[in-house]
């Protein structure tokens, strides 16, 4: 993407006032977005973007400058800005780059660029139609399709030279159903490090139908009762809970700043013995898959909680340095406009021994969550709240009736300690995870689990 001689010049300029580490991150991306609403293709975006971010770290402090002027002059200007933070004497660095190549091949069978607009639009319309065929109560359907093909170059003052590329696709359906003044929504999404072959596995019309069914079901639902009760989370719910209630608190920057309930708890029991939590960037095709993270460390599998015991955190370069460890390959950024920070990739609770069906049949009374909505967590004290998109009341071990408007409130470590049954299945969900104003694609997963007690918020007291 850039000549070695230019990269060398820029890195030397960035380190000209001292500093412990200098880096350039160059990115180019081509994106397509198709959006359908009100039965029509409303928008098609096509974008082309290029830019570079330059980072200098000096005694643990960071200066970051970015520009989309990729001329030698533009880059040198940015490098001079980044050199601001450095303390100490000027350094004349010698650079001898070692090229590091990806270990995994990406299997993109239908690259976005090779799929014509017409085909993408057909898929979007198919999802729209299938959802609308679900009945008269369906009032609105929106379908979004997005793909991105990204190339990056990462080079640093340690002599690393990494060129990588990644392709991601995403397909999202939202349905609004209404009856007698009651409005409910249904949602489904798929996405991955993949090409549009993804829609051969899960057809677009199927996604449309599923979303519509969910919205219609919630029209039938009764208001959710409020109070403390056992909660069974089906594997279909995906791993929103583990991502929010546990994952964020295990990101090393939050831990080091004292903003995590998991600080100082390495080696301690933080969850029930049947709970293991893993972050795995190497899961092929999953939305959070990485060959290299955004500072050139290889993506890897990191065990965070092993049978209830906290065994590790997720690190980027800077936080790893502070703890005298090596990066776990979790240094990610939204784009060249951001500095990398520790982030999750594909995060999940490992499957256990129980038959998922028997978890429900062994629950005398409680809430079954089949689809999670959004959520939020306060990592400092571990308090969380999640919305339940599709929930049911369990009575005498049987699924009785759907409920709407439920939310789950609780505390991360407390909830993890209260998991008393872990199923043998595993279900994934995709998401765009936000932190410090940066969004990155992630997936999360869990088996069917039961939490002994959680506060369920609802409108029915």
């Amino acid at each position: 993407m850039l000549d070695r001689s230019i990269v060398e010049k820029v890195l030397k300029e960035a380190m000209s006032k001292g500093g412990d580490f200098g880096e350039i991150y160059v990115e180019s991306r081509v994106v397509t977005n198709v959006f359908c609403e009100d039965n029509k293709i409303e928008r098609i975006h096509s974008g082309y973007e290029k830019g570079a971010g330059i980072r200098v770290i000096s005694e643990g402090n960071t200066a970051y400058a970015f520009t989309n002027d990729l001329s030698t002059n533009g880059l040198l200007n940015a490098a001079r800005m980044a050199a601001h933070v450095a303390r100490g004497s000027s350094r004349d660095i010698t650079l001898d780059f070692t090229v590091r190549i990806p270990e995994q091949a990406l299997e993109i069978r239908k690259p976005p660029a090779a799929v014509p607009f017409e085909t993408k639009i057909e898929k979007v319309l198919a999802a729209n139609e299938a959802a609308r065929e679900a009945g008269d109560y369906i009032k609105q359907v929106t379908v979004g399709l997005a793909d991105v093909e990204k190339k990056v170059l990462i080079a640093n003052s340690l002599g690393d030279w990494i060129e990588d590329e990644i392709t991601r696709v995403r397909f999202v359906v939202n349905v609004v159903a209404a009856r007698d003044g009651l409005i409910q929504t249904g949602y489904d999404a798929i996405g991955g490090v993949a090409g549009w072959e993804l829609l051969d596995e899960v057809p677009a019309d199927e996604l449309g139908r599923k979303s519509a069914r969910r919205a219609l079901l919630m029209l039938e639902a009764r208001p959710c009762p409020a109070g403390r009760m056992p909660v069974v989370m089906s594997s279909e719910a995906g791993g929103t809970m583990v991502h929010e209630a546990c994952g964020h608190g295990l990101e090393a920057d939050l831990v080091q700043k004292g903003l995590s309930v998991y600080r100082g708890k390495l080696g301690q029991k933080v969850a029930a013995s049947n709970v293991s939590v893993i972050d795995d960037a190497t899961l092929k095709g999953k939305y959070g898959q990485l060959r290299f993270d955004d500072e050139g460390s290889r993506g890897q599998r990191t065990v965070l909680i092993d049978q209830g015991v906290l065994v590790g955190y997720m690190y980027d370069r800077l936080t790893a340095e502070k703890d005298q460890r090596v990066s776990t390959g979790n240094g990610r950024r939204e784009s060249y406009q951001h500095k990398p920070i520790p982030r999750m990739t594909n995060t999940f609770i490992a499957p256990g021994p129980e038959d998922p069906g028997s978890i429900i049949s062994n629950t005398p009374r409680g809430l079954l969550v089949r689809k999670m909505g959004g959520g939020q967590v306060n990592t400092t004290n571990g308090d969380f709240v999640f919305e339940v998109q599709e929930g049911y009341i369990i009575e005498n071990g049987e699924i009785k009736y759907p409920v709407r408007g439920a939310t789950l409130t609780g505390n991360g470590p407390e909830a993890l300690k209260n998991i008393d049954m872990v199923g043998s299945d595993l279900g994934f969900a995709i998401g765009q995870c936000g932190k410090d104003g940066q969004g990155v694609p992630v997936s999360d997963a869990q088996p069917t689990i039961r939490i002994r007690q959680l506060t369920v918020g609802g409108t029915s007291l």
Partner: protein
Amino acid sequence: MKDRLLGVGNIVMEKARRKGLDAEVFLLYDKELSIEVVDGQVETLKEAEETGMGIRVINQGRLGFAYTTNLEESVLQEMLDRAVGSSRYTTVDENNMLPEGAFTYPPMETYDPAIRQATLEEKTAMAREVETVARAYDKRISVIERSGYEDSEYLLVIINTQGVEAVEKGAFCGLYAYLVAEEDGDAQTGFSLMARKHFGELNPREVGCEAARNAVRMLKGRTIPSQSIPCVLEPYVVTNFLGILSNSVNADSVQKGKSLFAGKVGEQVAASELVLVDDGVYEKGIASFPFDGEGVPAQRTVLMENGILKGFLYDSYTARKDGTTSTGNGVRSSFRSLPGVGTTNFFFSPGPTRPADLVRDISRGLYITEVMGMHTANPISGDFSVGAAGIMIEYGELTRPVRGITIAGNLKDFLLNIEGIGNDLRFFGGTGAPTLRLKALSIAGE
């Protein structure tokens, strides 16, 4: 820079005219600085410069769009072609029209040169003061998560083939602090933000103190039994609800059947004292600017008056669909996206009552200081069930902190149940509200 952006814009317009296209260019130059301080040291210094262009075309009623960060003359034709290319597949819609100029824009002050003139050292000193003040406020302040200074200056150029030519620059600056207070193993967070158009109005002391006060007052909070009681909401909590409400007064949502206010203009939708306004020319507003993202002049739009729904917010497209005119709410987040209906300075007007008087005659209630997961509220049905924290009100006094609860209800009832409006209008970014008192909210606890 202004000449460069105008030059690029006019070249694209010329190419579009030659092809007989209706087209618009949106050009943005943006420069940002952020200084984050930890323990008196600049932990992160970020400087950014960005230029980009979005091209919107309307090709026989079909909408096309393309964007790029590359403004070299050699690629301009290709970008225009890409935009036209994408228009081939969108649906014909007669309401796709570019606003027709030329407009006269309201005069306003959007750029304070003092922001640029202040040195990096002065700005860093301000960020440091926020941190120092916060730490000194109370010995239980244990961690300063982030505190710092930010500013941004930008130049916007919008030109279309229908006569619009809008050019203006703007700037704003701000301070913030996010921190933690700890006592006997209990940790609570607090934050404060201040955003201003004038550098001289920034007050580091206020930001540091408020963040610290917000954290300390929540220490050792406990849950309470499920119940339905009167609630008083701090302005920040109210602005969280406004975030959801903004969707309901958006003409796009209304036209697509996604608003709980569809068909309700002229009806009583809120308590009779409530006034809801979107004001793009509000003098002190951080979101005030002479024109919106498609070059339409900014204006003041009253959405609710005496609790009666007066109308909705429009961009050019939705306005044409409803046979009305744009309210100047064609908002654009960057050159990377098309304009869509959005808010400017969006707020509940202040009422007559001092906030303390809203609490005084409540024998048992909850003063809500925080809501969590507001984005999970359903903007379409109005149903919400969100995490919350606050302070118990007992016989008119704020007594003990409360956490680990959820509050639930529907936005319609929320608005009708307002029985007191504070005189303390306060803005968080472009969204503002006074303290509000509600007859009752359903609380789920233990």
